[in-house]
């Protein structure tokens, strides 16, 4: 009897392994191996000879020269970070708002949904950069209402003035980045049962309260997912300044690998800070409700 149960379990394990095997092989070939290899290269001076590669160990030389001996990394990464920190909440709030509104019963909402998914098609491509260069990204309302002098007054001379102005100036671009987020929120909104809203209505809750007490808490896993997605998307966007730096780096394999690894570490640190912040925030909120 025991043997048969054991056999059933190994059988199931075997079947499961069969399903996951291709993916694991792919992981080894397309991720684990290149990841480790690029780590290896970052400690070596790689020379490309006609028929082979030559690796000379150089230790932390590249890491040192990137981190301490030149400012190229910091010059492009700090403004980018500031912009990202302003952009991420804007994207999340905007897409949450649009998703909730799109969920309302409304004539023609299917048409609107179709339009609102358009960014998914454009937002990954070169075409979007074209639009941005065309100046479609700016609404020009900073100039029109002389907001920028006001911003200068409020923010003074701090280094945050520029990124905030940038994001406001390219507000449309921010909207273009929210396509997938709207979809995820919309899918998430479907998971909240209608009965929760009905009982809240019977209890006489105002829509405002319903939003804060029902919609937002139920959406919080999706907010987390979108947060991660947005960060990953912004940081791996092929046209961001760090990508340029990597692309036109000094051409040496070792140097580029070190640069990329530093960037990867920065992303991980940034993600964990963001997650920590998110956990803090949601814990505070749930504490306040109790």
């Amino acid at each position, binding site marked *: 009897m025991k043997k048969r149960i054991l056999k059933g379990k190994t059988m199931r394990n075997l079947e499961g392994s069969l*399903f996951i095997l291709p993916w694991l092989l*792919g992981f080894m070939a397309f991720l684990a191996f290149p990841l480790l290899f690029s780590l290896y290269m970052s400690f070596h001076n790689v020379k490309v000879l006609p028929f082979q590669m030559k690796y000379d160990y150089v230790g932390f030389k590249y890491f040192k020269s990137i981190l301490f001996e030149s400012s190229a990394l910091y010059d492009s990464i700090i403004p980018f970070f500031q912009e990202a920190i302003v952009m991420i909440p804007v994207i999340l709030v905007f897409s949450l708002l649009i998703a909730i*509104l799109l969920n309302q019963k409304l004539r023609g909402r299917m048409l609107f949904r179709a339009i609102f998914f358009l960014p998914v*098609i*454009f937002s990954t*491509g070169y075409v979007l950069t074209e639009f941005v260069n065309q100046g*479609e990204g700016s609404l020009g309302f900073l100039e029109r209402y002389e907001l920028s002098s006001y911003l200068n007054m409020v923010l003074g001379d701090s280094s945050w003035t520029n990124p905030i102005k940038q994001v406001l100036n390219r507000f449309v671009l921010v909207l273009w980045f929210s396509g997938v987020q709207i979809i995820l929120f919309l899918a998430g909104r*479907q998971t909240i049962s209608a009965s929760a809203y009905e009982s809240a209505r019977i209890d006489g809750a105002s829509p405002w309260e319903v939003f804060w007490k029902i919609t937002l808490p139920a959406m919080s896993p999706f907010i987390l997912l979108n947060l991660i997605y947005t960060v990953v998307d912004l940081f791996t966007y092929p046209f961001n300044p760090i990508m340029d730096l990597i692309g036109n780096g000094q051409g040496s394999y070792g140097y580029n690998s070190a640069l990329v690894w530093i960037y990867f570490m920065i992303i991980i640190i940034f993600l964990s800070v963001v997650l920590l912040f998110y956990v803090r925030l949601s814990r505070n909120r749930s504490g306040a409700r109790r």
Partner: protein
Amino acid sequence: MSTKLDLVKSKWTLKRGLGRKLGMKNKVRKVRYALLGREINNGLVFKLFLYAIFLSTSYIYIQPVLKMVVKMLMNGKDIIDPTVTWIPSTLYMGHLSAAWEVLKYEKSVIISIIVALLVAVFHCISCGFAGYAFARLEFPFKRIAFVLLLVAFIIPPQVVVLPSILAYRWAGLDNSLVSLVIPALFGFGVKGSLFVIIYRQFFMTQPRELEEAAKIDGASAIKFYLKVMFPLAKPAIIVVFLFSFVWTWNDTYMPRMFLGGAEDVPLAVQMSRLGQSLDNLMKASEMPAYLAEPIKMAASFLTILPPLLLYLFAQRYFVESVERTGLVE
């Protein structure tokens, strides 16, 4: 007698006045309901507000596309003329045909279609297997494998691209289109791990009774998956297919890295090459902007036209599927 009659009369008028007042109240309430609704979210005011937001946002999304189409159909005179903003005086096809030629459109569009189609189909199949395993099956080190999946999701492709180039060169696949397709066969490639996650979330929402019934019937997992679960996953398949196709179509990073200076490249790469060379020409002021811009617009239009058509065709299924995927638990 008369006093009594007066009394009755006054009562009568009182009643009528009251009645009229009540009627007024009813009317006011009716108007209020019509405007604000019984609940805030079905009144007229709220609907107008919704339409206002949707229309302005739609305008933001559609305007650049329209502008692109308009600009590429204008001739040089219209573009310089500041009085012509939206409607060109004549339909000029020169830019379109110029862009067609520079992009080598017939060739690169076929390459793009083949690559994107293969990648999308492979993603639908391979990510489905992995997603099902993560959602429902048991295998050793499942937790670690899931962490690996998340790692795969957040790793920027730039980290792994250099060794991949070397590996492809070692395998003799450099500058070959095969290098773009192979990773998809294993569930990698452009945002592959996201698709695994989408499948996983979908399969998690399916009732467990299905599997128990299959187990009693003695069906093997693979048979059950192919016969029951995979056909059930239609919403997830549609979402994955569309995302994968479009993102692979638009991707310029991987092809630029893997294909280098190859002759036969996908459309998006041709487009970015064209854009860059036009930029250089403009910087060297060998070509005025009013000549270069419309060609760029025409090329952009030609580049996004096929995925746009696919989307227009598939969007009804797509929009429905998004709701039913249960993308996350």
